[in-house]
């Protein structure tokens, strides 16, 4: 089941991938993001961020609210370079 459950759809990461990384001792969602790319795809973690936090929480016995949230970075939604160009010209 773990192998077939997709956590991060943009980067094609399964539950097994995430659990293996947590098992290696990475308990900070930021670290897991950097090492696996979880949440770094075009949707910027809109689905997987919460799933990742829940996995870390259940593995460590912590509350989701006590974990360090991965950073939300602008521009939040994909923007075409040429659209930004329109603001320049």
């Amino acid at each position, binding site marked *: 089941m773990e192998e077939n459950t997709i956590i991060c759809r943009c980067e094609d990461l399964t539950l097994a991938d995430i659990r293996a990384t947590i098992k290696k001792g990475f308990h*900070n969602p*930021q*670290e897991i993001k*950097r*090492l696996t*790319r979880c949440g*770094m*795809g*075009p949707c*910027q973690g809109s689905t997987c961020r919460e799933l990742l936090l829940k996995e870390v929480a259940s593995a460590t016995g912590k509350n989701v609210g006590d974990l360090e949230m991965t*950073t939300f*970075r*602008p*521009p939040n939604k*994909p*923007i*075409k*370079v*040429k659209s*930004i*160009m329109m*603001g*320049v010209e």
Partner: protein
Amino acid sequence: MKPKAEAVIIGGGVHGCSIAYHMAKKGWKNIVLLEKGTLACGATGRSVAGIRHQFGTEINIRLAKESVRRMERLEEELDYDGSIELMQKGYLMLAYSEEELDLFNCNRDLQKKIDPENLTEILTPEQAAELVPGLNLEGLYGVSYNCRDGHASPFHVTQAYADAATRLGVNIRTGVEVAEVKKEGNRVTGVVTTGGEEISTPVVIAAAGAYTKTFGEQVGLDIPVTPERHQVAVTEPLEMILGIMVISFAHGSYFKQTPHGSLLLGVGDPEHEVKDFNERPSWQFLFDMVKKTTFHWPALREANIIRQWAGLYDMTPDSQGIVGKTAVDGFYLDLGWSGHGFQLAPAIGQVMAEIVSGETPFIDVGCMCLERFERGELIPEPACV
């Protein structure tokens, strides 16, 4: 009783982790590495992580040659269970004036003199367009190109060093910030963390980028380093259409594609940047960046930007690292790489381990000592953004 360490390394970037590994490999016991955040969370992880041979000073050419060679077999050397995502598809440096092209020629000659196997070549704009289809040739005088330059993941290179260091007994502690470096007489005696924990040690190695300045002040050293924000945006992953890193020193801009497929687009604006520790990205950057990068490569107009971030260069007056021992016994420095530090970490880690062990380093980095600023013996690196 205070916990004791043979050595304390401040900073869990790629340099701190490389030093830790190389020291442990030389037989140092009980090394403690302290990182205030997580590994590679500062300048290392925020860099675009290029690796290249194309430098313009002898010392960097030597360090780069050795470091690229090590990157090429790093997974094996460190027995890493992941991939460092090494990709060697070259670096293309754009010359927008006769003078700049002359400089690239000089740099190429120096690189070949120091390393006969160096592959840097000077190409015409037309040859460059064959390497980067769609490259705008307007105003271009020529390019400098080396096909063995490339990219590696800053997170995985750092983690690979950290894992290897841990296996050799190094105690890597993240989330632990050093508040103060302690000194008695002219010798360091330990560090105190912000949590109030004191670790006594005869050796402190500060590898904390621009933050190192404060530790210098605590032991009475003036380290001329300033933080300088640089920003990067990343696109959605695309088919591999641009293996090469393209750089323009004249515009302060660069762009490349990572093995993952996303394009990294960067611009520095040293003239207008406030020299503080602000690591937040700005809208102004996006405007500046799209203007410059689409000038070089108009095809970029169709790409989607999905994320942008900022990181801090640790700038020195000559854009060169500060390395080695200091006037304070037991206090060593490795910082100030001014935007090209990631790629030199493999060689510098060993150099530092040898210096701290009292040996002659395998590459002479004497010219990179802190005292050079007092003596006025600067070694300006011409080839950096």
